[in-house]
């Protein structure tokens, strides 16, 4: 699938995953790349950007056998962004769907 297509909505996907609960980079990458065809690496710049903009916060937590994990937590600002972006996406995707179906008939 077209890369530019994905980039815009991956932020929304990452926010949605974090809405379910705090998670670490590898886990987010794994969850997303099992559903969407993409490189594991893609999520890291997104997480970093979201953290820089204050939509997520980070904390370190020891793991049993691996390196300490950097967990990402959705902030209040992030929750607001998630609601806004989701609505925007819903409207947009509905509109696109409508257009595509119009063209078929």
């Amino acid at each position, binding site marked *: 699938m077209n890369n530019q297509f994905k980039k815009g909505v991956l932020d929304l996907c990452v926010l949605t995953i974090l809405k379910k609960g705090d998670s670490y*980079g*590898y886990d987010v*990458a*794994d969850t997303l*790349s099992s559903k969407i065809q*993409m*490189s*594991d*690496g*893609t999520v*890291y*710049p*997104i997480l*970093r*950007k979201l953290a*820089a*903009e*204050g939509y997520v916060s980070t904390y370190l937590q020891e793991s049993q*056998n*691996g*390196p300490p*994990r*950097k967990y990402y937590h959705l902030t209040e600002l992030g929750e607001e962004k998630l609601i806004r972006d989701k609505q925007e996406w819903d409207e947009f995707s509905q509109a696109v769907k409508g257009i595509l179906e119009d063209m078929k008939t």
Partner: protein
Amino acid sequence: MTKKEYLDKLTRELGSMSYNDVKEILGDIENHFEESALAGKTEEEAAAMLGDPSELAADYKDGMTFPTIMKKKEQKAAKPSVKEPTSSTVAFVVLITIFVAIPAWVTLLGIVLGILLCELGIAAGALALLCTCWTFGPFLASGLLFGLTLLFFGIFGYAVTYFSIKYFVFGTKWYINSMKKIWKNGI
């Protein structure tokens, strides 16, 4: 591509970013490799799944537009710096260190040095005995036996010395680390 090759290439591609940013990014990606290894993937597989390092670097650069860099700086400035330890934490660490840890440490150091000296003495004795027992005449057999016994005792002593020094250093490190943790996080 191995983990090292991947990280090297990523470092080169990130080139223009600040040292701290590059360090953090490399840390994240290195952790990803370690998590992948735990999940049973080879370095090559993990690198392939991460995607082209130059693309990854480009994504990172895209995300770091000027305003986000400024925002990050503001956030950093607003955040309080390292949490100060509370007075009870300070008292706990200082008292334990002065009244328990230091006396215990000095005693243990004495014991370790004692063992080391004993060991050197036994080894020297055994060697001296074995070298000179040829002159014992009729007592040669018993002298030899005693010398050999002493020598084996000496070898056993080496093991004791080795482990006592090892655990002494290990214990010291553990103590310093746990005190640091308490200092940072409170009791």
